[in-house]
């Protein structure tokens, strides 16, 4: 069982993006400020006029955990979860897949991928940005 995100009209664009194989970051149409998580008002200029930019899908580990206990719905433990600083300047919580607990470290480079759960939900997941993972990375959600 996958834990599904609560979605409203302020965050719908993000999930539409993952379904399309895009990692979308909210961008203010008035002043250009980027933010994550998204919200209805620009924190820089107060405008409600917002769009998004598609992130390159690369970033650097700011922090991480290895979750061993207790159970997490839909996950086989242990799992590695990181905070990733995207190259566009925002930070996200990132499930890192296909990585051994001892492989993760602050400063490592990550590359996004997409886990298509069903017709309604595609979750971003991240992999170590190495030649091995790049070679096996799917171009986008099928």
């Amino acid at each position, binding site marked *: 069982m996958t*834990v599904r995100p*609560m979605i409203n009209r302020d*965050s719908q664009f993000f999930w539409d993006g993952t379904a399309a194989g895009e990692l979308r970051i909210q961008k203010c149409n008035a002043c250009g400020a980027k933010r994550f998580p998204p919200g209805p008002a620009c924190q820089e200029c107060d405008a409600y006029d917002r769009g998004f930019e598609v992130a390159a899908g690369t970033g650097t580990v700011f922090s991480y*955990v290895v*979750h*061993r206990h*207790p159970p997490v719905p839909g996950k086989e433990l242990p799992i590695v979860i990181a*905070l990733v600083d995207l190259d566009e300047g925002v930070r996200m919580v*990132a499930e890192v897949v296909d990585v051994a607990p001892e492989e993760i470290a602050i400063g490592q480079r990550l590359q996004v991928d997409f886990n298509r759960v069903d017709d309604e939900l595609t979750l971003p997941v991240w992999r170590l940005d190495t030649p091995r993972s790049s070679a096996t990375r799917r171009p986008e959600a099928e």
Partner: protein
Amino acid sequence: MSTLSRKAAIVGIGATEFSKASGRSELQLSVEAVRHALADCGLTVADVDGLTTFTMDTSSEIAVARELGMKEMRFFSRINYGGGAACATVQQAAMAVATGVADVVVCYRGFNERSESRFGQFSLAAATQVNTNGLDNAWSYPMGLGTPAATVAMQATRYLHEYGATSRDFGAVAVADRRHAANNPHAFFYGKPITIEDHQASRMIVDPLHLLDCCQESDGAVALVVVSAERAADLPQTPAYVAAAAQGSGADQYVMTSYYRDDIGIPEMGVVGRELWRQSGLGPADMRMGILYDHFTPYVLMQLEELGFCGRGEAPGFVADGRIEVDGAFPLNTHGGQLGEAYIHGMNGIAEGVRQIRGSSVNPVDDVEHLVVTAGTGVPTSGLVLSR
């Protein structure tokens, strides 16, 4: 100086036993604790005209009032954000009695968070709540980050990285708490002290947190009776005057996942600290001891820094060599903390602060004129300075 400082006092404390299976409803636990707290200060239900609790509490003020047989209530309120509410319930009560909105306000918190809804588990309810907190959790829970330990561990990893601290520094908090609990007959871990080696050998829960960095899910309830300073003078117990009562929320604040600031950490506790010192006219050097919220050890270190007891990254040195133990220079959590006594969302820590002011703690600290108490960390939070 603030008009709130020393205008109110905690005069009664009460609690149920702390257990892993109370065998009765959460409502009953809270009602029992309120009655114990009233008996402690020689007041009766007929004196009470206000109740305040946590938004998270499953027992409403009116349900508690009904079971107590209260006829009318003039003041009732709740504070949000989990354990961050603890000291803010006292702030609510203090403001009510200081302004004459109410005369006797009881703060309560009761739950079966071990035998019923377990707080340490992955919370689907938190991920699906229909409000902005649920929307906020969309950015962490679906990614697998959804237990209290995991959300704290994310901050702990970065703290270790930034300051060159080690797991043993977190362990110093656990060792102190468990030493204090070992002397407390009401504590889960009465008679069960640990060593730093025990801490290091305990299993990993969420790296870098070991089992002994984490508090225990607990069943139980605590209640606190707050009256005006004038009324307190007529009651039998030594009043614990509220020298300051503060809430705090930081920039770009979230509940347990304030990860999007440039510098993560708990600046909301800095907000609380600055307001405590402003209201009370006191400072860290005036505090004889502290009760710092310890559901997980790393946040105790970060609180010492945010409250100004030491600089950023200096807490590992501050807590070393027994300094935070009962015979140290700055004792912490002399009831055993939430790691050692029970996890009653910080309310049992406020009760211990009152006992230290009264001189009735099982681990008494000499000459306690003033002490600091804090509420839940990683969330919008609160704090108190209690004075003799």
